[in-house]
């Protein structure tokens, strides 16, 4: 059923008297639905907004990001906050997708199939604003949601690090989530480790804690972050993750690009900054940024461009998931597959260099299309079917051809060597369990959420370009796999989901490269100038979303245009922003598991593998 229409109807009927402004934006129907439709509401009264938000959240919507801006500051001295909600995947996602596929019409009600957004716009008064900003700081997990809003704060790192500690009540979800449990010795429950207790002068046994503080500088090639563990013996009683050491003010950099003679060129330069938000997820970040800017300009890329972008994103997913599998293998001291995986990773990076000129698939995109050098080579390679060299490289790891050949034959490749090894299984089974309801209520995204049994995947809920193919959707919705029998949210299922997604990505690439229709599309490539012109024609302070599913989860960009045609505000939502707190919750919710020692932390960390830079921005 059409859930966006339902939500819109409900919100409209309940807020008609409150002067709510309402608007639906949807992409041009003939542009292959570059973006999903969005319903926008503007609220004046915060209580009404909160009520509506709660009703949305109760009806299987979830909040994905909140954007404070100050575009009205100059005129009426008020700030605005945008809340962006999206649909939580339900059981009938697949049906409604095929329904929508069969009845594509230009009306709003039919074009909203599974993916759509609701945006709440709230003009904030000062007193309420302070309160909300405090809560949002937690959600955004960094110092400055907006440079101007928070400029009164003293510019000291200590202040920041105190600020970003988790608050008990998480505003975005309107749930009471107890992240920390109180471990004060006076009323804390006795812990089942008598040897780590001592008797105090009143004759009570109290646990003996030792505190291990790691970081910000770690003993390895890792970005900085501070981890604090309170231990009882070896067991982790409580863990805290303090981040923010790689805070570069990335969103402010976007705004600073506009101070030039030709402000519209800032959109072009913004692409470089977008690629540097999280260096290992550059293709997804660049793609999301491009899609946001293209939606703003109303200039949509051709099918071929979309197809090549999707290929880049899937390639990035394959190489990074492979990398994670390797680090997990090394984490359980199974060095042999790890080394083989480094070899494969290196060969893949060299292959990417050949195709795109970047080993990390960085800087391959441009506004409106693919970068000129990458475009030609990528098209030449992929329009001739699945590249032999790619399957040759991946053969030792996973044989894609086996998918269609004899399924009864015992597979003999690295994936199975790792997956079936009893030592590996014993080490990562039931390690760092993230419960399904926790994953959902904390808003976990990406493979982390999917390994816990959630279905959150922007490829399924907000498909674009080649993902909208029904065959592709069928592959994505297939969740039966030899690696994917259990989704209980432990480190093993996080390994399993990575193995699973590598095979899914390979199958997607096979499908796309086999489909000849993609290459007969003779539409002219959209040029950068067309996009920049389109931006100049758009009204000031208009905002659009761009998103895609990167390998860590959904990447969302929110861009707003200023009066001088330059960037006014860019808001980045990297998946790590949310998943870091999910990981902290995971560490803190293992109290009943005696195996959760401090030595397990590196392995749990590796199984999450989150970006520091994407979180700190």
């Amino acid at each position: 059923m059409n859930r966006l229409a339902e939500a819109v109807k409900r919100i409209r009927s309940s807020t008609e008297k409150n002067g709510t402004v309402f608007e639906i934006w949807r992409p041009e129907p003939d542009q292959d639905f570059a973006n999903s439709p969005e319903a926008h509401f503007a609220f004046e009264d915060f209580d009404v907004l909160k009520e509506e938000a709660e009703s949305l959240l109760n009806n299987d919507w979830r909040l994905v990001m909140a954007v404070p801006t100050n575009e009205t500051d100059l005129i009426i001295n008020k700030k605005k906050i945008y809340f962006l909600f999206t649909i939580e995947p339900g059981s009938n996602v697949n049906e409604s997708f095929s329904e929508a596929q069969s009845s594509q019409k230009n009306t709003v009600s039919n074009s909203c199939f599974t993916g759509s957004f609701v945006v709440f716009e709230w003009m904030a008064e000062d007193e309420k604003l302070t309160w909300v900003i405090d809560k949002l700081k937690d959600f955004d997990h960094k110092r400055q949601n907006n440079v101007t809003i928070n400029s009164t704060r003293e510019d000291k790192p200590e202040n920041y690090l105190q600020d970003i500690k988790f608050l008990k009540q998480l505003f975005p979800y309107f749930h009471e989530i107890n992240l920390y449990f109180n471990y004060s010795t006076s009323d804390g429950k006795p812990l089942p480790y008598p040897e780590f207790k001592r008797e105090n002068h009143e004759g009570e046994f109290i646990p003996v804690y030792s505190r291990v503080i790691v970081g910000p500088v770690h003993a390895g090639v890792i970005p900085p972050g501070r981890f604090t563990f309170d231990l009882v013996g070896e067991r982790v009683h409580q863990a805290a993750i303090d981040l923010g050491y790689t805070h570069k003010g990335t969103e402010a950099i976007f705004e600073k690009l506009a101070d030039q003679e030709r402000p519209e060129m800032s959109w072009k330069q913004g692409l470089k900054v977008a690629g540097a938000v999280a260096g290992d997820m550059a293709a997804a970040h660049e793609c999301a940024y491009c899609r946001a800017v293209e939606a703003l300009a109303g200039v949509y890329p051709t099918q071929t461009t979309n197809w090549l972008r999707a290929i880049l994103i899937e390639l990035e997913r394959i190489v990074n998931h492979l990398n994670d599998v390797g680090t997990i293998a090394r984490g359980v001291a199974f060095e042999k597959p790890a080394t083989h995986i480094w070899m494969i990773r290196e060969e893949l990076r060299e292959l990417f260099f050949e195709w795109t000129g970047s080993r990390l698939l960085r800087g391959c995109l441009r506004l409106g299309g693919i970068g000129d050098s990458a475009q030609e080579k990528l098209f030449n390679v992929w329009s001739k079917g699945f590249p032999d060299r790619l399957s040759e490289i991946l053969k030792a790891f996973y044989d894609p051809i086996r998918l269609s050949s004899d399924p009864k034959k015992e597979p003999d490749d690295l994936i199975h060597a790792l997956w079936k090894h009893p030592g590996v299984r014993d080490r990562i089974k039931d390690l760092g369990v993230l419960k399904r309801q926790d994953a959902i209520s904390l808003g976990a995204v990406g493979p982390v959420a999917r390994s816990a049994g959630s279905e959150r995947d922007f490829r399924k809920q907000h498909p674009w370009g080649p993902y909208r193919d029904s065959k592709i959707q069928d592959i994505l919705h297939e969740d039966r796999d030899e690696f994917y029998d259990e989704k209980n949210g432990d480190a093993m299922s996080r390994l399993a989901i990575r193995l699973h997604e590598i095979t899914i990505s390979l199958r997607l690439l096979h499908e796309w490269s086999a489909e000849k229709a993609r290459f007969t599309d003779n539409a002219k490539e959209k040029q950068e100038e067309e996009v920049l012109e389109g931006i100049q024609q758009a009204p000031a302070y208009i905002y659009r979303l761009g998103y895609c599913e990167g390998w860590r989860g959904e990447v969302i960009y929110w861009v707003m245009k200023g009066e001088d045609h330059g960037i006014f505000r860019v808001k980045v939502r990297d998946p790590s922003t949310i998943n870091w707190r999910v990981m902290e919750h995971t560490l803190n919710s293992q109290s009943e598991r005696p195996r959760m020692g401090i030595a397990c932390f590196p392995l749990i960390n590796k199984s999450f593998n989150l970006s520091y830079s994407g979180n700190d921005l």
Partner: protein
Amino acid sequence: MMWKSNSHRLRWGKSLSWQEICRRAARDHRDFQPLSKPHGLSIAIRHLDCGSCGACELELTAVFDAPYLAERFGLYLVASPREADLLAVTGVLNKNMFEAAQATYQAMPEGGGSSRMVALIGDCAVHGGPLEHSPERIPGQYDSIWGNGESRKFIIPGCPPSAAFIIANLAAQISQ
């Protein structure tokens, strides 16, 4: 054994030769001049990220792993700055990391004829790169920590510099 290793191409012995590394480095950066294989190097490297995007870390990880295995050329990774000869920094130096970076640099041994060495890896560390306009960046970046001339400074540009270029360029600059 679950895994019949004979059925695979074993690649342990397939790490890249010095010539191949130089070839790749020259491919990635045109200015690079291939040089002969370094001998007698023994440089303990400590990595420090002061606000990078993670791309330089990916390449730096590859430097010490198969197939590059930089230990063969006398560049190896250590866990603490107290035993390091060279501090390899990545990223723009931001305010939150300033103190930690200072402490890390100060913890490195000095004296006895040896001076501290630092390597700026990636465009961000050298001149800001794509994050040049960062409001959190310390003016003067790393020079505010080690000043000019106090330590041997190596510069490895690139966004990110490839693993081959890091090895070849670093070895070339050190053995000069």
